[in-house]
């Protein structure tokens, strides 16, 4: 079985963000980038399925990012993935989420897959639309927000989180599944894994190689346009009170809630 995990490089949450006033894009070069934390769960789940299924199952990492994103890819390979595809092309910068999903879907057709695993969201944009959009392009079953997954007899059995609980669903392979944090505890890359990752293959196909139409990519191929970015001012520090007894503390809060017309 061939498992492909889609992973994204995202700016570190702690990093100060600046935007290019002309292109309105994030200055990605000046900040530290990390593997999207949500995608670690997808990688871990792929590795667990591989361990359960045996030797003829492979795990491929797929990312669309600047050519410099190899650190993020190496981390995934260090965890135990077999190989990676880094989609990087001059036609790509400026792609919005839907253009991104199109390019990833084309890459997936090129690479081949039985099961696609994704994170549920990226920490930088929190769009949560790329996985479902990929599945729609590929016209395959799509089961998102999965907290428990079983792969058996060419089908999946999954528990999908809902706002009020979960639903258990079944679908045939090939399929796309996005996983939540509740599904597993990701492993750390071992020293041996990190050393071994250096020898693993990273393919870098071009847009032409994957048969993607450049007119549907980049800023020109995106259907949304960013007009502006405005920094949000830091929240002001309010009043901090030290209280000797609990009654006084509770009373302070109640008075505040009354003033705010909450109660």
């Amino acid at each position: 079985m061939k498992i492909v995990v889609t992973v994204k490089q995202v700016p570190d949450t702690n990093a100060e963000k600046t935007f290019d006033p002309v292109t309105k894009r994030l200055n990605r070069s000046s900040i530290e980038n990390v593997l999207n934390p949500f995608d670690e769960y997808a990688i871990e789940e792929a590795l667990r399925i591989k361990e359960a299924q045996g030797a003829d199952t492979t795990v491929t990492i797929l990312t669309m990012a600047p050519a410099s994103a190899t650190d993020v890819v190496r981390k995934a390979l260090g965890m135990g993935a077999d190989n990676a595809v880094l989609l990087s092309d001059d036609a790509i910068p400026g792609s919005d989420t839907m253009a991104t999903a199109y390019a990833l879907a084309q890459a997936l057709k090129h690479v081949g897959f039985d099961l696609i695993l994704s994170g549920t969201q990226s920490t930088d944009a929190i769009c949560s639309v790329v996985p479902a959009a990929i599945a729609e392009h590929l016209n395959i079953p799509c089961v998102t927000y999965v907290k428990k997954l079983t792969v058996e007899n060419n089908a999946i059995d999954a528990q999908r989180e809902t706002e009020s609980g979960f639903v258990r669903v079944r679908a045939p392979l090939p399929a796309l599944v996005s996983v939540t944090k509740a599904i597993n505890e990701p492993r750390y890359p071992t020293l041996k894994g990190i050393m071994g990752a250096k020898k693993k293959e990273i393919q870098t196909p071009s847009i032409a190689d994957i048969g993607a139409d450049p007119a549907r990519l980049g800023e020109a191929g995106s259907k949304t346009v960013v007009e502006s970015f405005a920094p949000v001012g830091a929240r002001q520090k309010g009043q901090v009170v030290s209280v000797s007894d609990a009654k006084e503390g509770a009373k302070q809060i109640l008075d505040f809630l009354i003033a705010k017309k909450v109660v």
Partner: protein
Amino acid sequence: MKSVIVFVEHESGAIRRIGLEMCTRGADVARELGVPSAAVVLGAGASKAAEQLKGTPIDAIYVGEDNALDRHLNDPAVDAVEALLRELGPTLALFPLTNLGKDIAARIGVRFGAGVITDATDISVKDGSAWVQSPKFGGSVISTVGFKNSEYGVITCRANSFIARQEPGNGEIKQLASPAGKTYAVTVEEKVAQEAGKLGVEEAGIVVSGGRGLGGPEHFDIIEALADALGGAVGASRAAVDAGWIAHSHQVGQTGKTVSPQLYIAVGISGAIQHKVGMRSAGTIIAINKDPNAPIFEFSDLGVVGDLFQIVPELTTLVKERRANA
């Protein structure tokens, strides 16, 4: 755009509150664009939900109750929405930021080659087109994003961003035709409603969250009691979730939910950046922490330095008393 349509989610006929918020803003946006507005409700209980929508300013309500909608995951709903949009012509379609809403939005976006703008906290109309405000990068910036052409456009909306207004529109209810002869691959085997009827953290106007300071799962009782007294939902820090004290669906922060309630009360939470990005856009933040140097105090409107085990039950009592006398 020829119309604005709002996808309304419900549970066995009980509407998620965000649906009422979106119907109000959706109808307002439609008026500004000079086009009709409509809502669409799907699945078992949709007729009941539609009745509640008559109290919102929306012009028409489309109802689909085909059995396939409940037996299969998402696919029949995507088909139903697609068929309706094809009938209506170029549409601005609004979806709630729920697991179902996000999936359908993405797939409708692909089917119509439409732009998809996510996580709207405001929608305005300027020069005849819709512009969306959306927080990015953990809420550190607000982006203003628009659609390049005026054909189909898709927006996902964050709860507690628009104010719901009671104002009966035309409220005309129309039945959607059942899709003929379609088969779907993803089957729903079982539905488990663990917290039916409870407000989710993303939706609630008030969230009371507990962190590692609670010391153990049994102490979430006092958080729940305060949340109940205030009519809010229970949230948690990652430390509390990772310790197994409460389900991940309650987690607020970078690897949990992003919430914008009117009031957020952080109890025994230190205020790490990964927690902050999930709640910094709350209207008012109150923190209870025994450490006067806890970072949470740096961005709280009111901070109380003290022992949560004493303050929280006391506060719950005071709130209940006040409510009883009101």
